Every structure is written in C-alpha cells, then in structure tokens.
C-alpha cells in the first residue's frame, strides 16, 4: 500500500529517512553557500537572476544547512540513539515518518519562497507564517515521539545523552515559537533583543545541546572506555541550561539596548566556559589510553576533530563576547568564521560521525568504501581549515580598516584574496559532502550492497 510505503512503520525507517533527507538538503544548502561565496569574488557571475543573487542564496544557504542539514540530521540521529539508549523501539515510526515528510515539505517551501523574495527579513527566522507553523508542529511531534520512547524505556537510569536530547526537545520548540515573531510587530530594538534571544538559543539550546549529547553517546561507544565522570557530565548539563539561554544580547553588544541586559549577556557568556570545560575534560579523559584509535577508526576521528573544534569555538566565543574584543570584531568576517567553526566544524562533524557510526547499524549494510570516508575527512578538515584561516584574517583586515578610518572602497579591495580562498575551501567542503552522499547511496542502494547484505544475513542464519 502507498501509505505503508510513504509512512512506513518499519523499525529504523524514520531515522533513515531523516538522515537521507538531511544529506540531500546539505548538498542544496552547501551548494548555495558555495555559489554565494563565489559571488564575493565574481559579483557578476550570475547576472539578472534575482533568485540567485547573493542575499537570496544566503537565505537558502543558512536555512538549508541549519534547518535542512543539521536539524534533520539531528532528528534522524536522535531517532536512532534514543531507542538504542532506552533499549526499546521508537514510540511511533509512523509519526516519525510523517514528521519527516512535513519537514521536507517545509524545506521545499523554503526553497520556493525565499529566493523569490518572500521573507520576513529576520535573520534565522526568514520563513513565512505557514512554514513556521509546520515546523512548530514538526518539532512538537518529534518531542512527543522522543518523550514517549523514553517513558517506555527498558533501562532505568537515563544516560546523560538523553538528558541533553530531552532538554533540547523541550527548549527548542519554545525558543522557535518565541523567535519567529510572525504575528507580532515589536519596536525595532525589542525586535532585535527577542530576535537574538532566538538567534542565540537555536544555537545554544538546539545545535549545542543535541550535538554534545551525540558526543557523549559516541565517545564511550567508539573507544569502549566508560565515561570518565557522570558527576561532571551533570555539572556540564546544568551549566549549559543556566548560562546559555540569557546570552543572546552579546550579538548586539554595541547597540543602544539596556546596559543591564548586556551585562547579563557578557557575564553568562564568560560563565559558559565552565560547562564547556567540564564537557571537554570529560571527553578527553574518556579518550585516555585510546588516542591511537583515531588513526583507524574513522567515526572516532570525526568525533575527536569535532570536539577539538568545539574547544576552539567555545574559547573564541567568550573571548569575543567581552566588550573590548567585541568592540573590535563585531560585524567582521571573523564572526562568520566563528559561525562556521561552530556549525560546520563542530556540529556538522559530529553529525557526520554519528551517521558513519549509526547508518551501518541501522540498515545492516557496511559502507561501500573506507577510502571515500578518508577522502571526505581530509577534504572537509583541510577545506575547513582554509575557510577558517581566510575568514579570520579577512575579519582582522576589515576591522583594522574601519578603526583606522580607511575609506570603505579601499579596504574592501584588500579582501579579494580571502574571498578566493573561501571559495576554494567551499569547493573542497562541497566535494567532501558529495563523496559522503555518493558513499551512502552506493552502500544503501547499489546491487552489490544488496547482495552483500543478503550474504551477511544468510551467514548469520547459518551460524544461528
């Protein structure tokens, strides 16, 4: 039956569908980012096509990678990890698959509306009212599914990853609803305050919390070491819960918003070092004695790289949240570098690790090629290193430019080499992602893969 095919209730199908959709949208999102990056160097690359002008590409890019790639990937991975941690099935595969379709519909809607100029003009909340509502419904059904799975669990104690996942699924729908501001028109600066509460907490209460939860899951499993300390992990969790949410105003630290709000934001940004350092101490102590595994175990390699990027992100973050440093760096490409370090470096890497680890377990099929995984790793890591370097330097050149009152036209020409470097890095990253997609498709849908899986099943039966 068609319904059974589309909204299947086979075990693991929701998770797999989410992951496959995430991979698809990652190509669209990163492709748009790449084209946007190239338009910095060749502004007339695409002429007279409003849909492909840089700002529209940027909307597709950010929505594509944040809502499409990362968020869908997160849901897919959670739908795999939550049942595995609770030793039950997902509460409802059908609901999960239905959410996946709804979410894909949102992404198609975004792809049709944003480039044609239907935007609300709010960063990270560009989508129109209808799409906002569907996302809200989608998030609530994901949360429902996750909570019910945990209620039905067969393990008594909740592992720390579950705390993170469940916390995120409570926080994020609320943050999302507050952040859209679809039906309210707040006066300018209040709009900005609420906007950055949302803009920051989509990062802090969704991307960070779920991502860290995934690290907590992967690190002990991949190394076969027990988690170093459960006490520390709880300290980290509560630290994030307390200090992440009020920091939004550090994005508008120099605008004329109330000083007390800025003070709260700066202080809690600095306090964020506490949870970050406890989390990382926990990881690195868990790795003790197993560092050499990075060489052979590719998902672990992605995980470690990701946690190292997390360390850099979160030392950079409090640093640039202080008034003196923000004074110099705000509005520059440095911040764009920080954004990519967090979302591309840290959280895309951990999602990738989770997919490389989870997909074979989910579908019973090994990856088609280990070589392609290695190529993916190096393209992404080197490409990202290049991107980070070029954006950071570009940011410093920019801010030196306006602090010395050099006319804009002059320092903007100075940035040309960095734009080219970023385009090159974009090509590498995009290529890496294409290899990833190819590898996954080859492993799941090719004839050899099917034969191999069948043989494995037979062997298992023979043994059994």
């Amino acid at each position, binding site marked *: 039956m068609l319904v059974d095919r589309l909204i299947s209730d086979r075990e693991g199908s929701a998770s797999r569908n989410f992951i496959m959709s995430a991979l698809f949208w990652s190509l669209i999102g990163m492709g748009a980012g790449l084209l946007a990056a190239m*338009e*910095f160097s060749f*502004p*007339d690359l695409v002429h*007279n*096509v409003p849909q492909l*002008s840089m*700002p*529209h590409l*940027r*909307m597709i890019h950010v929505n594509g990678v944040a809502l499409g790639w990362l968020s869908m990937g997160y849901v897919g991975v959670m739908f795999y990890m939550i049942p595995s941690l609770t030793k039950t099935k997902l509460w409802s595969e059908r609901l999960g698959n239905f959410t996946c379709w709804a979410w894909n519909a949102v992404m198609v809607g975004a792809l049709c509306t944003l480039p044609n*100029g239907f*935007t609300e*003009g*709010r960063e990270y909340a560009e989508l129109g009212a209808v799409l906002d509502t569907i996302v809200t419904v989608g998030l609530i059904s994901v949360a429902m599914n996750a909570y019910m799975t945990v209620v039905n669990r067969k393990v008594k104690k*909740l592992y720390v990853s579950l*705390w993170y996942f469940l916390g995120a699924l*409570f926080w994020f729908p609320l943050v999302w609803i507050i952040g859209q501001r679809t039906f309210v*028109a*707040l*006066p*300018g*600066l*209040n*709009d*900005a*305050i*609420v*906007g950055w*509460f949302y803009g920051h907490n989509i990062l802090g209460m969704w991307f960070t919390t779920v991502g860290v939860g995934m690290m907590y899951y992967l690190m002990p499993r991949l190394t076969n070491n027990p988690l170093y300390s459960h006490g520390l992990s709880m300290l980290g969790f509560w630290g994030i*819960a307390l200090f992440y*949410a*009020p920091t*939004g*105003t550090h994005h508008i630290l*120099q*605008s*004329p*918003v*109330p000083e007390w*709000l800025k003070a709260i*934001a700066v202080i809690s940004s600095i306090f964020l070092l506490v949870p970050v350092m406890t989390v990382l101490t926990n990881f690195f102590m868990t790795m003790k004695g197993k560092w050499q595994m990075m060489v052979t175990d590719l998902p672990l390699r992605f995980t470690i790289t990701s946690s190292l990027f997390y360390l850099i992100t979160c030392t950079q973050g409090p640093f640039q949240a202080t008034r003196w440093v923000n*004074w110099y760096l705000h*509005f*520059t*490409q440095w*911040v764009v570098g920080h954004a990519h370090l967090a979302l591309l470096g840290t959280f895309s890497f951990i999602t990738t690790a989770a997919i490389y680890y989870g997909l074979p377990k989910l579908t019973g099929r090994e990856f088609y090629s280990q070589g392609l995984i290695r190529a993916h790793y190096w393209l992404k890591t080197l490409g990202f290193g290049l991107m980070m370097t070029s954006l950071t330097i570009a940011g410093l050149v*920019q801010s030196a*430019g*306006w*602090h010395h*009152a*050099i*006319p*804009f*036209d*002059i320092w*903007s020409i*100075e940035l040309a080499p960095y*734009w080219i470097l970023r385009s090159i890095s974009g090509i590498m990253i995009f290529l890496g992602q294409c290899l990833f997609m190819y590898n996954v498709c080859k492993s799941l849908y090719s004839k050899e893969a099917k034969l191999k899986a069948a043989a494995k099943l037979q062997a298992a039966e023979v043994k059994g």
Partner: protein
Amino acid sequence: MKGYRLGATGIIVTFFTIITATVLLPMVLFNPKPSNHGNTYKDTPEAAVADPERGRRIYVREGCFYCHTQFTRKQDRGYGPLVKAGDYVYETPHQLGTARTGPDLTNEGGKFPSEWQKAHLVEPRAVKPGSIMPSFSFLNDTDMNDLVAYIQSLGNNRPVKHYVEAPEEYQEFLAKKKVDTESDAAANAGRGIYTQNCAACHGLDGRGNGPNSISLEKKPANFTRAFFKQYPDDMWFYRVREGVPGTRMPRFGMTLSEEQMWYLVAYLKTLPKDTELVVNSIDQVNKIQPTRLPRLSNQLYEPATGGHEGGPEHPAGEHHSPPPEEQPPAIDSQNSVFKAPAKTAPSSETHGTTGGATGTTTGTTTGAETGTTTGTSTSTTTGAEHGTSTGTTTGAGSH
C-alpha cells in the same frame, strides 16, 4: 523517578525564569521614546515621486541587510552621527544588520544624488570600481525608484556634525598649531606644497584625477566631493600626516614639517566642495562652478609667525592687498572664457559634457592665475609660488 521529576522541574523553572528576565522584562522596562531622528520616509524630495515605505519592503525583500548595517558606533569614523535607542522605534523588522560586507547605511540619505544611487544599483562596478555588491538590475523601475527613495530617506533627520574624526592624540597637534588655517595667505603657501607633493595623484584642482591616478588601483580622493565639507582641521592633518594605509597615499609626516602640513590643510579647505553635480544636458554645463582657487593676496607671511593674516609686523601686507570687490575679476574672466566654448562650440557634446567642462575650466583658470600671481605677488615664499606657476602651466614637479 523522583530524581527525574526534580530534574524536569528544575529545567522548566530555570528556563522560564530566563525567558522572563531576558525576553519579557526588556519589553516592559525598555520602551525608548521616538527620538525624532529616525527615518520619516517623507521629508525627502524623492518621496514626491516614489514611495519610500514600499522601498523599505524591497530593501527587506532583497536582503540588503545581510551586508549593510544600519547601526553606527563610536569607533566607526566615517558613518555619521551615532544612533540612539529612540531612532528605531518604528523599525520592524529591525534592519540592524549582521555583517558589514558593505558600508553602513544609517546616514546614507543625501550622500549621493539619486541618479548615482540608481546607477549603483544597476551596475555597482560602473560607479565604484572593485565593488563586490551584486547588481540589482532585475528590479523594475517602480521598485528601483522606491528603493532609491528609501535609501535617500535614511538618517535624513539626523543632524550631521562630523562623519569622521581623527584619533584623539590629534587634539594635541591642534593645540600646538601656529598656522591660521583660515587665512588665504596660509592657503596660498599650501597651494605650492600641494602642487609639488599631491597634484600628481589628486590632480591640480583636487578632483582625484592627477596623471598617476590612472595607474592606481585604489583611486586618490576627490576633494571636491561634498563629503569633505565636514572634515575638521585635525582630520585633514591626520590624513596628510599618516597617509592612508593600504593605498599609495604616503605618510607626509615623514617628509614635510608640521608647519608645512598645516599650510596644506589651509589650502585643502579652500578647494570647492560643491562642484560634484550631475549633468544631464548641455544646458546645465554652465551651472557647474568653475574651480575657485584661494583668493590671491599680497599679504606677506612669515613662516615663523605662521602666516597670520595681516600680522602687526607687516602692515604693508594690508596696504597692498586689493579690496575684495576687485578680486572677482579673475574669476569672472574665467567664467567668461569658460562659457564661451560651451555655448559656441557644439562639439563639446561629442566629448561628453562633464569632461569638456572640466577641461576648459582647468585650462583657463590656471592660465589666468599664473598671470595674476606673477604680476602682483610680492610674497617672500618664492619656493611655494614657483611651485604654483610651474605646476599650473607645465605639470607637477617639472621645473
């Protein structure tokens, strides 16, 4: 189970406390009053032909705010007066912006003529070489006019005092200054220094079109732009002394004395700042002001006293100087020469109107100048005067 219930309650309580403190509380406590300096969208001439409020929607639709901020800060020299909380009361959705890939637009209104803005939107690289702004040529005419009307309304109600400021330590130089930068005598001294040191790039009449400018990637500044009207003395001095890093503009602090640089400042201030007009037809050509050079005077100035006009030691200076009414002939004669070719020779149409006009202006002005200068000058600073005459007749530095 008890433990988890406690945990869940903890999460809910902390989160709602935070929402109350950082989202709801600001909405209650923070209600800035409209400052009357926000955008009105109505008081610009463009508002008569286009709709700036619709223009704002196009600004949002096209996503301009991803690259342009509307948010000036204390350290941004060059973007105009600081914003205040009350400026944003009617701005929803806010367009504070997120990255400054392009310049800040808070006070953009009136910086350039509307025709320029339109040309810039259609083909940014035609008017700003090297710009990376995308072309918005796909906007139809109504959209484009509305958008330009919106741009012209930006910041218009804010009184502009200083766009730019020199670093604080330049107050000390200002305090030590001995030269009267308002005096014509100092300006005349500066003119020679300018011709020797600056004209090769900035052009004789300061239009940024000296012979070297052709080969420079980053074009020298055009001092006749209205923008330079608001340059205070210390800013001019700062620019001359430290140059512009990243460009070929040298640090003249290394080669000129402080006093010489103040003479330069005096001269730069006399360059006309209103001549950058848009010329649409041949009839308008005559309306362009010819370049006005500083008034000639016979006043003596002594480097030691800093060229104070009519200093007590030199009553002779006053005696020699012609009364102001007699001064204009030089300009008048330029005008008449200037008018002649434009009116009588239709051929100037063929080389583009502005080009023709500037060409004539420079030629005649300098000719007249040289005559008068050498004829009446009794000045002691022959070096500087020499600079002028050679500069104007044969080009910089070839004497």
